[in-house]
């Protein structure tokens, strides 16, 4: 090989380009998030809300189920009741903290399951294409025909009330949109040359999906599902409000809103508390997912 002028060693020497800090995509996203103070703030809020739900037994000043006929519908700051009491004289603060557990679970778990199920379906549909894609996506389209709240109510109604059935119906509601997002993202990635190159090595479909597709579609799917959490909290509250989700006396924000509604003329401020909690939580989740979206929008 003596007559070849460019020996690899020479080439290695000339390729000593200016050193660039090696940062993976996710490190880049992290780097961007670090300077996005708004998202950081709302992210901290989300964590705070979740922590307060987890540590409700430690934080709650009273028993959330302990009713008292004398202390019904007391205003904010009455005696030891920091946020007043409800129509059965139970401490609202304690019920709010405990209620967060159920409300957040109802918000997060269905989205989580839907992300896994819908995401997998969408990735398969997007990668395999053809007839498989048509079958999966047309089925999904059927669900699209119904407004999500109606669909949730219909499924819950058919299956009966209760937390598990409520979550199940919400999961079913979220599978179609997540499937669609995953399918779109996958079919975009599938046409890139590196996937062709992976096929050209003789790799099997599952390996290509796991190694090459997943990392590239996870971002958009996660952004979308994080934005769905706020919708899920609202829908769960709606179901409970209608009596289809959580059943009394379990503390749940939506259910509390429903029962307190009767007292709206007696003590409107107290009535509004669960609503405000739902609002704040869903806004926080929404803004965090917006922040994630712009941080992940890195054109590498």
């Amino acid at each position: 090989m003596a007559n070849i002028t460019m020996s690899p060693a020479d080439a290695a020497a000339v390729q000593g380009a200016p050193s660039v800090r090696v940062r993976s995509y996710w490190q880049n996203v992290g780097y961007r998030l670090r300077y996005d103070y708004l998202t950081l703030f709302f992210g901290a809020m989300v964590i705070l809300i979740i922590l307060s739900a987890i540590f409700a037994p430690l934080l709650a000043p009273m028993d959330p189920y302990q009713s008292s006929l004398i202390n019904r519908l007391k205003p904010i700051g009455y005696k030891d009741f920091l946020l007043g009491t409800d129509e059965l004289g139970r401490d609202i603060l304690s019920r709010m903290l405990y209620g967060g557990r159920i409300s957040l679970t109802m918000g997060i778990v269905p989205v989580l399951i839907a992300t896994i199920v819908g995401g997998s379906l969408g990735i398969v549909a997007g990668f395999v294409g053809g007839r498989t894609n048509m079958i999966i996506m047309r089925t999904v389209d059927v669900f699209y025909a119904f407004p999500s709240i109606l669909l949730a109510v219909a499924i819950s109604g058919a299956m009966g009330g209760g937390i598990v059935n409520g979550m199940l119906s919400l999961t079913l509601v979220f599978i179609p949109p997540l499937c669609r997002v995953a399918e779109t993202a996958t079919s975009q990635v599938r046409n890139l040359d590196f996937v062709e190159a992976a096929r050209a090595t003789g790799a099997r479909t599952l390996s290509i999906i796991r190694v090459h597709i997943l990392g590239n579609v996870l971002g958009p799917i996660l952004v979308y599902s994080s934005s769905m959490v706020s919708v899920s909290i609202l829908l769960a509250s709606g179901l409970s409000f209608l009596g289809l989700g959580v059943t009394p006396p379990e503390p749940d924000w939506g259910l509390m809103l429903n029962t307190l509604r009767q007292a709206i003329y007696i003590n409107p401020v107290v009535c509004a508390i669960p609503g405000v909690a739902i609002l704040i939580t869903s806004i926080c989740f929404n803004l965090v997912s917006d922040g994630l979206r712009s941080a992940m929008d890195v054109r590498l």
Partner: protein
Amino acid sequence: MTVTENTRPSQTLNAVDRKDARDRGGDRQPMLIARELKKHFPITGGVLNRTIGHVRAVDGVSFTVMKGETLGVVGESGCGKSTLARLLMHLIVPDSGDLIFDGDAVGENDGLSVRDMRRLMQMVFQDSYSSLNPRMPVEDSISYGKKVHGASEQEAKEAARELLTKVGLDPNLFGPRYPHELSGGQKQRVNIARALVLEPRVVILDEAVSALDKSVEAQVLNLLRYLKQHFNLTYVFISHDLNVVQYVSDRVLVMYLGEVVEIGPVDEIYARPKHPYTQALLASRLSMDPDDRIEEPPLVGDPPNPINPPSGCRFRTRCKFAEKICEIERPVLGEWLSSEAHVTACHMFVPRSGHSMANEAGKPEAAATVPAAAMAGED
């Protein structure tokens, strides 16, 4: 124009002198034979998504690649050269036609499986950006193929690092990097390393240097030359750049609208092009001399749409020698007897074809080569 002093014996056209232990069919057996490859893409439209036409991307293409040679494939956009590359790799399944790899039919029961063929034949894509996984360090992109074929994590990594060195990148510096941290030329080096990790016999280079800057293109061409010798490779080099093809190829295949119009040894084709299209293509090369500019375009108009190609000879709509026969009858590529053969699909070269310029010998000396010389201009 300065060129390095180093020279080496010119490449032999037929089999390479070096025996390769992986030879299955013997050294005279062509590395790759494509027979009547055909791929038509349906175009769907209307409310019912019915097929309303076909893009005849590759329409009956046959050729042979000898062991150790570089076959250049040239043609304009839409001529089907990229589809051809994907057909060879079985990334697109051909509608019809056979592929024979070193004596074994590909994808048939008693032949070579597609998966095994893909170990022996690899491809480098044009777009160095989209052909690397953006979420993966480049050494993982390279080692992936090795792992697919059962190598351990450690072995695969070793192979990747060795290949990075071979393509001129320091594995410690570049291995852990992500594609966006590399320049275009560096990414293309990584793509080449990835193609070589399975120790293939044949590498298909689909416009592999076209997107690179000239100075980087030259580096990569040198690298390809080095790797070809080092790994005893056979190249199918697809490009629209006639100068590059002339530089790298031993033989050249010219495509127009999904068909082969001419095939032959590189010096033959460049010095004595037969097909009017090849002549025009060569005459369209820019002169590089400001005092000797091209005054008249050798061809007018664009290549026609491959959806409904012209009847008979597909080039006739732009050909100045077109006659009635060209419209009626599709010219066939002359019989291809050896790797030295220079054949073309043109009625002017077929005795008694009905074309006024075709003489008995099938060589339209007086007729076609004189205007060709005028067309070629500075050549």
